[in-house]
């Protein structure tokens, strides 16, 4: 085992060369480690996404069936234009679905509108007074204040992804069921000098046109991007207020009691979305209602992380191959420089494999120091590289989802004659965009940490690189004739 001692003596005697070798090897190991860290972090992020991003199943009126029904009535009655009639979702059905496995929580949404009484709605130049007309709202009338009845504001997409934020007071919670509490937008509050604790009056636009007094419990600020998303003819986003879904139902009329426009169920494991949908369909009247799934957030994160992982894999292999070539060239040069030493060893009767082993041990000693250096710097390089990769992937993913999800009226009906359901597509479009923003947030959380296992894996890669390099370079040693070196 004298070659271990020779390797050590050589490395310590030729400090300059050893430091150079350590620097080159550290650079190679640093990039291999960065690649490994990003790949592992992408793996973790993908599995975390399953838990944190989740997926949703939405129970809403079956519009396809409603359209079919409308078309069939058109063919029978030619005198009057038929109406598209959809049924609101019964909360009792929603509660049954909520009991299924893998349903973490659910949120009911009711949308309607009313007219401001005693205060002024924000009017946008160029938009008509009844801004929501023709946006899927009632053909009879629609108010200038859009009411979003929710179970809880924090569960809505806009608040979840911070598009909207409570700036004063509090949001709507399940405790507000049956109350006349309202959360208004900050611009509207400013315009009408409203603050938390004040009261506003809203007049229903249908039925008995009752005027309701609501108590302002919170003020929220909608981000500027939201206002740019409004569709043609939509009311100003500052005129959107949040109430409990029970109040929104009251405004819509008594027949809407214990109903919702839609109920969104959060599925704990995105992989179980299909199973939940199947089980849910068995509990509802599918001719009236439909269950739609949305695991786009998970899919966006997954696709994005798959891209990051694939790129990280390429980094690992490219650096490993380039590193092997670079190190092999260095070792070849080193061997040429040390021909006399090899010749002396051969003349002493040293076995050739032991001479190759000496070079390998030298490189392994260099590798150990390099791994320590790479371990110290790997997290920083991995973080920088990871951030860059994620930001590129996020831009691509967000652009993709925005271009597919934006449309006139968003998820709402782009016109048509429905009986007082969704007054505006704006909220839905915002929700869809919110989903992609949520995934953006999750992607940015690519956690890069150097673990012992990472270093072990890096050591494996390093040993393989060193072994290949030495094997490529050792052809020279195996062919070397001591007589040629020492005598000729």
């Amino acid at each position: 085992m004298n070659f271990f001692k020779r390797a050590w003596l050589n490395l310590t005697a030729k400090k300059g060369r050893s430091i150079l070798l350590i620097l080159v090897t550290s650079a190679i190991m640093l990039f291999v480690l960065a690649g490994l860290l990003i790949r592992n972090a992408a793996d973790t992020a993908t599995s975390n996404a399953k838990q944190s991003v989740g997926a949703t199943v939405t129970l809403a009126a079956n519009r396809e069936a409603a359209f079919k029904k409308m078309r069939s009535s058109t063919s029978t009655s030619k005198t009057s234009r038929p109406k598209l009639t959809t049924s609101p979702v019964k909360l009792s059905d929603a509660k049954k679905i909520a009991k299924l496995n893998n349903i973490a929580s659910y949120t009911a949404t009711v949308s309607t509108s009313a007219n401001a009484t005693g205060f002024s709605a924000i009017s946008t130049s160029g938009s008509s007074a009844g801004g929501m007309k023709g946006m899927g709202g009632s053909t009879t009338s629609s108010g200038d204040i859009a009411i979003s009845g929710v179970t809880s504001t924090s569960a809505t997409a806009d608040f979840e992804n911070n598009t909207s934020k409570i700036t004063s007071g509090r949001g709507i919670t399940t405790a507000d069921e049956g109350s006349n509490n309202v959360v208004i937008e900050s611009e509207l509050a400013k315009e009408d000098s409203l603050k938390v604790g004040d009261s506003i009056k809203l007049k229903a636009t249908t039925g008995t046109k009752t005027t309701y007094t609501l108590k302002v419990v919170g003020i929220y600020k909608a981000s500027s991007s939201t206002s740019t998303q409004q569709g043609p003819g939509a009311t100003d986003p500052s005129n959107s207020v949040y109430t409990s879904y029970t109040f929104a139902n009251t405004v819509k009329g008594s027949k809407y009691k214990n109903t919702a426009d839609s109920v969104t169920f959060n599925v704990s494991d995105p992989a179980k979305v299909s199973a939940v949908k199947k089980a849910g369909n068995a509990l509802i009247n599918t001719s009236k209602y439909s269950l739609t799934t949305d695991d786009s957030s998970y899919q966006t994160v997954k696709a994005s992380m798959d891209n990051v992982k694939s790129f990280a894999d390429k980094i690992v292999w490219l650096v490993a191959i380039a590193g092997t070539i670079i190190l092999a060239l260095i070792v070849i040069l080193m061997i040429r420089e040390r021909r006399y030493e090899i010749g002396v060893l051969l003349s002493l009767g040293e076995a050739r494999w032991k001479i190759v082993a000496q070079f390998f041990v030298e490189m392994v000693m260099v590798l150990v120091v390099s791994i320590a250096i790479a371990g110290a710097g790997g997290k920083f390089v991995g973080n920088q590289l990871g951030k860059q990769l994620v930001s590129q992937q996020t831009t691509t993913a967000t652009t993709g989802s925005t271009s597919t999800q934006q449309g006139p009226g968003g998820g709402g009906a782009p016109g048509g004659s429905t009986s007082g359901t969704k007054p505006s597509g704006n909220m839905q479009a915002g929700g869809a965009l919110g989903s992609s923003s949520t995934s953006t947030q999750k992607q940015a959380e690519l956690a890069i940490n150097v673990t012992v296992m990472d270093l072990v894996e890096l050591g494996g890669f390093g040993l393989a690189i060193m072994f290949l390099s030495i094997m490529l370079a050792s052809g020279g040693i195996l062919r070397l004739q001591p007589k040629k070196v020492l005598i000729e």
Partner: protein
Amino acid sequence: MLKANDIGYWYDRQENSLFEHVNLEFKSGHSYAIVGQSGSGKTTFLSLLAGLDKPRAGQIELNGEPINQLGLTAYRRSHVAIVFQAYNLFTYMSPLNNLLTAMAVTNSSHRGDKAFAMEMLRKLGITDEQMTKNVQRLSGGQQQRVAIARTMVCDAKLVVADEPTGNLDEENTKDVIDQFQKIAHEQHKCVIIVTHEPDVAATCDYAYRLAKHEFTLEA
């Protein structure tokens, strides 16, 4: 001890052989000089005796056994110690580590015996301080003495030297030659020296001249 039986060597064609049908015998306890003009083939002959190359014809026997059968690497490791004109020491080591490495590689019976290696170095005039410094800090004469000490710590019974005094001044040459004679006569080893210096050849027990492809014993 060592016999060259009908040895012949040539590079490209047999007609241009350096020597042919060489039959020589080298015995333990004696020193031999091989002299001749530059390019006559004396170093090549030495490389055959040292097991660094194979003859084109004939065979070399060690105690009656062809060295090819022993294996040239094993033969060099256990039976031959070589001293070169350019010293050929491990330049990144101290004189002491050079000796300890040679003892380890050749599986010397004194393997790992640091005191023995130091004693050998002291015998050859290397001080304790010089022993632990890098070998390149020593003069040419001192480096050659380290190379000779390396042959003394190994168990090899055959010591071959190629122009060992080629880079040395007169005083160092005399010292080195004295050491070779001591190795032959006191350690009872067979010493074969290739030299072009008549003074060096004159100190050896026997001198063979290689001229016109033939070896002749000089008086």
